[in-house]
């Protein structure tokens, strides 16, 4: 007899606004499993840089698409183990620090656990919902079973045959970036929303950095836009431009030029470490990074407006309506 323990979130106060350094210091510990998620959009670079600055060690890094954020965290020696379903960057090509660690064990090996996107999505959903496992479609006939003992199977009790299943992800800390939140931690995001709601619920603690803290009335005027309710959030941190060089729908574009530069930076380990010295250790916080990037760079990723068509939620008329 065992007990299902999705496990309740750790308690958090009602006003959840914190500074980034304090949030990372309080909630990210050596040896933690962290999920700094965001599928090509809203990648929480500012939070990752703060983790590097604070010198965390022995982390298990879980991300569907590692992206540059993985190359940086791994090069900074924060990470012992990578759990992922893609080992390159869609826009930047190879992640050379990741490849050096895996192909040459240079400077030391990196433990890897490998899934498909659909399997990772199911793992986050299982983690969010307290499901002990979820069935998936992919994997049958592949070699993925051979290199991953946690990819398993069960017999369909409705007679459909054997089915591949995956276990939940329950990270110690989920770290996300989003467009806006209120001080209670109700988070609104749009554009590619990826795996963020499931990752937020799956986290034992969840830190969300946002472009803007807005008044509760803004959030409450459009409750369907709150994809991450406050109860799933431990700390909310205002960090404008906190996703650069990735992007924020409606706020700034991806810095594709930087993504293209990354290949050359990461290919040369000493150059990569110099980059970390200059852009992570060499800035005190995100505001200093934003300033060092300079106005011209920010102008290159600016956007013109493209507003969403209005919607109305309605309000009971003062003089009644339905009896």
């Amino acid at each position, binding site marked *: 007899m*065992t*007990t*299902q323990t*999705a496990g*309740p979130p750790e308690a958090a106060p009602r006003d959840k606004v914190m500074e980034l350094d304090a949030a990372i210091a309080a909630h990210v510990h050596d040896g933690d499993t962290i999920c700094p998620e965001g599928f090509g959009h809203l990648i929480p670079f500012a939070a990752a840089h703060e983790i590097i600055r604070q010198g965390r060690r022995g982390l298990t890094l879980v991300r569907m698409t590692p992206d540059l954020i993985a190359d940086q965290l791994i090069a900074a020696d924060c990470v012992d183990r990578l759990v992922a379903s893609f080992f390159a960057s869609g826009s930047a090509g190879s992640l050379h620090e990741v490849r050096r660690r895996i192909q040459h064990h240079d400077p030391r090996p990196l433990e890897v656990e490998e899934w498909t996107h659909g399997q990772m999505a199911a793992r986050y959903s299982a983690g*969010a*919902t307290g499901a002990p496992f979820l069935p998936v479609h992919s994997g049958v006939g592949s070699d993925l079973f051979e290199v991953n003992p946690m990819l398993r199977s069960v017999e369909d009790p409705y007679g459909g045959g054997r089915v591949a299943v995956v276990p939940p992800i329950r990270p110690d800390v989920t770290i996300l970036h989003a467009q806006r939140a209120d001080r209670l931690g109700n988070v609104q995001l749009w554009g590619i929303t990826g795996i963020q709601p499931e990752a937020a619920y799956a986290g034992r603690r969840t830190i969300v950095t946002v472009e803007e803290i807005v008044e509760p009335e803004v959030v409450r005027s459009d*409750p369907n836009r*709150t994809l991450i309710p406050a109860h799933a959030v431990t700390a909310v941190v205002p960090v404008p431009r906190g996703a650069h060089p990735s992007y924020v729908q409606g706020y700034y574009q991806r810095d594709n030029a930087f993504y293209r530069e990354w290949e050359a930076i990461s290919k040369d380990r000493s150059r990569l470490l110099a980059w970390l010295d200059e852009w992570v250790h060499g800035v005190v916080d995100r505001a200093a990074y934003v300033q060092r990037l300079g106005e011209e760079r920010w102008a290159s990723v600016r956007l013109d407006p493209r507003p969403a068509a209005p919607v109305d939620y309605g*309000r009971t008329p003062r003089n009644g309506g339905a009896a």
Partner: protein
Amino acid sequence: MSTKVGPEFLATVASRELAGEHRVFAGIGLPTLAVDLAKRTINPDLELIYESGVCGAHPETMAEGIADFTLVSGAESVIGIPALFGAVLGGGYVDVGFLGAAQIDRYGSLNTTVIGDWAKPRVRLPGAGGAADVMANSRRVIVVIRRHDPDAMPAELDFCTSASPVRAREAAEREGFALPQGAGVSTVITPLGVLRRPDRFAELELASVHPGVDPDDVVRATGWPLRVAADLTETTPPTDEDVRLLREEIDTVRLYLR
């Protein structure tokens, strides 16, 4: 046994159970009144969650259903039904669930399905709805029941819709099931008194009687040999302000105060 206390009494006693809680899974009827009263008195930060997917409701008017317009407009979040039952309930985010029942047994198992035989019942009740899911996942469950007699509180349920941890443990031991995370019914508020369970696998016992109620009458009104707590107390009645809020600000049309 006739009702000794009115709905204002039941709603107020229920509201006090919400002191210090973060998130309540609220139903319609007396729970609607209880959560509203708690927010206006002892727990203004209480997050109201409804099975329709509304989280952090701030209704401007009293809801007549769990999927009401007034619960949505101005809410902090509205999520889909799979997310509500999966992530919010299954993820262990609900502190307190409010449930009603036609029958409740000594361990807090609930029947909301049928009176009589399932295939051709004497009374077809509403069924599980979200109750069985709330029971399986909430850190505690409060039941408010408008009757206290051996039919409503029998030795054996006609049907077990929402299993107590004791029944779930039996299934776990018998068939190897994982034990659900829900800790079961902690509190039953009836027209005669308040029953509580000392722990997850214990029997409900009479913790307090409402003013003017004889504990022996409560035992006689119960279908199993009800234990009486050693430290039995008298239930603190509503204040004038509780009653005023319920009648003049919350349920002004006397929909549930009947």
